[in-house]
């Protein structure tokens, strides 16, 4: 046989067998759980049978021998000679493992490998034995034997071409006769006369064994395909295998077509020619349909990946002595092929983790008042052009304290960070490389490698992952991934006269900042622009300034009369991007940039717009890193999750920390702070015995902090600028001259001591230091 043909045949065998074995595991587990369909055993049998036949034909004797032993056992099962015991299911699962490992070795090295599978073979042999001698336990409820069954089976799905008699006539089809003639109704229903079937099977098995020697192999496997096809459903008959590279090329061409379409549509709108316009419309419709069609060819249901999970769950939970029931919802949810490939391994890792760390042992579950059997839910659904995959367990949940402690011990975070890190952020520490909270390392997981890799892999395909957990009641991992990578919806914006595309995946919301009215505009905290959005301080980046499109001085924060703010999410955190104009949303075709630009991480690529011009696609994470909106102290304090913030506000307060001089610290509730300003001291004026400053077209009285709080040292006037907390109430404003604003924190400490009525509410411990809590009513009084 020609070497390249041999190569091709082996490649086909690999693809087919891996698929088949997944199906095999799936059906087998259904049999074990008692939910098997009528056809399950036939499916299983055919998978092994095909592998055996093809392997024999290609001279892969190890694979053939192992498959053959399994086939014998399956044949007995199928014919009802024996019924499936748990031991048998386990052995049959081991069979698929053995076959997989040999196939993998074949794939990697070209040989079947030299692993010794003889224990498995003897186990499979042993399991067949009892039946011949002992097993005819079954009564005979079915009066008419095989013939009538054959009739009914053939009548239904298979067209006349493969009447069993015709098949039988070819003699050498013996081996395949079985699948056609011994259909599903015989399992698990008992058989009238069990004896003939095992015997019938035996000779065919014998011929199969002979095939291993060499010559009859070709005829055996040559016979296999037609019988194989006859038994399959029509859906499989009408499907063909297509090289993914072809589909990728088609996808690229469609991308080009989409661009050309966009250009023609735009032109047609300008030219005003009715014929051109209607042709363009038609082109538009056809292109859209073609695009959808081609994308559909690359789509696969996520269930294709999930077929392996029942098996994984079974094995892992058995290994760990846990009881876990797997629920799968939305297995028909479709995803682009490349994405399916990319999430396969991360998903397996997550599932193993969930069973190992998440779900407790049966005893502990019972003790905690939960059902003995843990639940693991895989759920997939579409949401807003993305696919959401959730892996949820009802296990012990994650102890945020432990994670913090561990990260602290490893020096990943500082004590201050640990102290003020909300649980939700602490959970995400598990994605740090090398961090594991498992108390002991098991075979399954806990080595601390993995979750970071999971995260990296998900992010590489433009997805994101978050972890939600509640101690005692379970953990949910939520993965968001784009449907496809080549054509994405994007928001088109303009800044500094240039257009940019922002992938919609990163988009959270659009905000119009109107500083002309009463509303708060862009503020400056610590020199960094921030915007207060629903009780959150959102760190801001000015697109034009970050990209150096306009001189930095031209856009000082606060000086705009109105601007467009795009709230974006990167790395699980939010920040605001200020742009000149928000144009519209569009489907764009992502094109890579030349390598010359590889050092510019703020671009994800480029695309061609409807007018034929090129627009850059922003890389949201790269941009955020460039603008440092995710890493500095402002972001740390500000990027609190909105849901959490809402729930927390009731009993927790955000505080503005002030170094009041002389080593004392003061905290002002952020809710009573309207603005933080920095003024040059040279702008201070005196009016009516008070220090004032011209501010926003009015006069703002200024009060030193030590006027409100006795026993504070005089504020140092070392710098030319003074930091001022602006407070408004009842239409009046006052500026409090504070020493130095150091941070914004959430009050965590509960050991609040009582105040003495001297402008302080009391004291508390924040970040390991005693802080005086300022009484905000004093602010109110000073304003009037």
């Amino acid at each position, binding site marked *: 046989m020609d070497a390249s043909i041999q190569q091709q045949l082996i490649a086909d065998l690999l693809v087919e067998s891996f698929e088949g074995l997944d199906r095999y595991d799936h059906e087998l587990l259904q049999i074990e759980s008692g939910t098997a369909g009528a056809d399950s055993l036939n499916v299983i049998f055919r998978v092994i049978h095909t592998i055996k036949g093809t392997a024999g034909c290609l001279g892969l004797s190890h694979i053939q021998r192992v498959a053959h032993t399994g086939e014998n056992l399956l044949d007995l099962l199928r014919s009802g000679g024996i019924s499936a015991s748990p031991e048998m299911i386990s052995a049959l699962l081991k069979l698929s493992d053995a076959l997989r490992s040999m196939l993998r070795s074949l794939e990697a090295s070209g040989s079947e490998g030299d692993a010794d599978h003889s224990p498995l073979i003897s186990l499979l042999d042993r399991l067949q034995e009892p039946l011949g001698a002992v097993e005819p336990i079954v009564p005979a409820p079915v009066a008419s034997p095989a013939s009538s069954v054959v009739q009914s089976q053939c009548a239904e799905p298979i067209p006349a071409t493969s009447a069993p008699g015709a098949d039988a006539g070819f003699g050498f089809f013996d081996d395949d006769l079985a699948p056609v003639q011994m259909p599903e109704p015989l399992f698990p229903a008992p058989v009238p006369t069990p004896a003939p079937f095992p015997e019938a099977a035996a000779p065919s098995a014998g011929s199969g064994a002979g095939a291993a020697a060499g010559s009859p192999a070709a005829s055996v496997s040559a016979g296999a395909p037609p019988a194989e096809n006859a038994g399959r459903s029509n859906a499989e008959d009408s499907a063909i295998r297509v090289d993914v590279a072809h589909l990728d090329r088609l996808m690229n061409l469609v991308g*080009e077509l989409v*661009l*050309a379409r966009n250009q023609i549509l735009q032109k047609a709108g300008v030219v005003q020619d009715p014929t051109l316009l209607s042709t363009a419309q038609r082109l538009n419709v056809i292109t859209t349909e073609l695009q959808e069609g081609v994308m559909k060819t690359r789509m696969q249901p996520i269930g294709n990946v999930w077929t392996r999970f029942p098996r994984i769950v079974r094995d892992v939970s058995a290994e760990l002595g846990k009881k876990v029931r797997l629920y799968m919802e939305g297995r028909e949810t479709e995803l682009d092929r490349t994405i399916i490939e990319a999430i396969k391994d991360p998903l397996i890792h997550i599932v193993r983790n969930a069973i190992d760390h998440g779900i407790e042992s049966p005893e502990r579950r019972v003790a905690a008042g939960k059902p003995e059997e843990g639940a693991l839910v895989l759920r997939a659904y579409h949401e807003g052009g993305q696919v959401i995959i959730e892996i949820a367990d009802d296990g012990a949940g994650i102890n945020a304290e432990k994670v913090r402690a561990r990260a602290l011990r490893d020096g990943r975070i500082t004590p201050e960070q640990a102290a003020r890190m909300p649980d939700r952020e602490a959970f995400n520490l598990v994605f740090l490389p090398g961090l594991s909270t498992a108390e002991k390392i098991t075979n399954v997981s806990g080595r601390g490698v993995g979750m970071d890799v999971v995260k990296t892999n998900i992010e590489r395909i433009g997805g994101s992952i978050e972890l939600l957990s509640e101690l005692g009641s379970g953990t949910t991992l939520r993965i968001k991934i784009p449907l496809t990578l080549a054509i994405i919806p994007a928001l088109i914006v303009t800044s*500094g006269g*240039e*257009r940019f595309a922002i992938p919609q995946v990163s988009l959270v919301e659009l905000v119009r900042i109107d500083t002309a009215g009463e509303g708060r505009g862009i503020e400056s905290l610590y020199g960094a622009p921030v915007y207060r959005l629903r009780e959150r301080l959102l760190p801001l980046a000015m697109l034009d300034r970050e*990209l*150096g*499109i306009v001189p930095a001085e031209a856009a000082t924060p606060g000086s705009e009369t109105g601007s467009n703010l795009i709230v974006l999410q990167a790395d699980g955190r939010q920040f605001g991007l200020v742009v000149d104009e928000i144009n519209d949303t569009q489907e764009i075709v992502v*094109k890579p*940039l*030349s*390598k*010359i*630009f590889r*050092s*510019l991480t*703020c*671009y994800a690529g*480029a695309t*061609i717009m409807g007018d*034929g*011009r*090129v*627009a*850059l696609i922003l890389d949201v994470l790269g941009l955020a890193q460039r603008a440092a909106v995710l890493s500095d102290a402002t972001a740390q304090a500000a990027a609190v999750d909105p849901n959490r913030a809402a729930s927390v506000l009731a009993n927790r307060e955000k505080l503005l920390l002030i170094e009041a001089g002389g080593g004392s610290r003061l905290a002002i509730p952020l809710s009573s702070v309207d603005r933080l300003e920095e003024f040059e001291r040279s702008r201070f004026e005196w009016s009516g015995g008070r220090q004032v400053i011209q501010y926003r077209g009015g006069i703002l009285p200024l009060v030193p902090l030590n006027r409100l709080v006795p026993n504070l040292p005089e504020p140092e006037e070392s710098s030319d600028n003074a930091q001022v907390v602006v407070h408004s109430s009842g239409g009046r404003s006052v500026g409090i001259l504070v020493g130095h604003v150091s941070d914004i924190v959430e009050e965590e400490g509960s050991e609040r001591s009582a105040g003495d009525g001297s402008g302080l509410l009391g004291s508390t411990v924040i970040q390991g230091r005693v802080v005086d809590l300022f009484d905000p009513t004093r602010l109110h009084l000073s304003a009037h």
Partner: protein
Amino acid sequence: MSETRQLCTFTLGDFFFGIDVLKVQEIIRHQEMTRVPLAPEAIRGLINLRGQIVTALDLRSRLGLPPRSASLPPTNVVIHTPDGPVSLLVDEIGDVVEVDAAGLTRAPDTVRGAARQVITGVFRLKERLLILLDTSKVVELPEPVPAP
């Protein structure tokens, strides 16, 4: 007896340059360009070449010559590179000239820094000097990105 080479010629200011004609994909008139903020100075932007995005490199800037006047729209010489096509912006395109390969002489040592690495040599033509550029060196921008 001696080998000849065909060179695609163009001008940048008073200088007369040539590149191997086989390296040239096409020559197109000035195109609308999208600039790439933060990119190295020599990169003028991106152009849409029939659906393909091509990076445009200003040869004047690359060779350390003074910028061309705004009234003079540059011409794109699109060349093949291993990293896809790149467009070189030149002042004016000239003829394809045939030169004697043996007539190539080393560039004089007085040629200044930026240009030095990208000049293969010089041909003495009857009326002027023709400077031969190494296209693969031209598109290799020095790293790190030079500050303007």
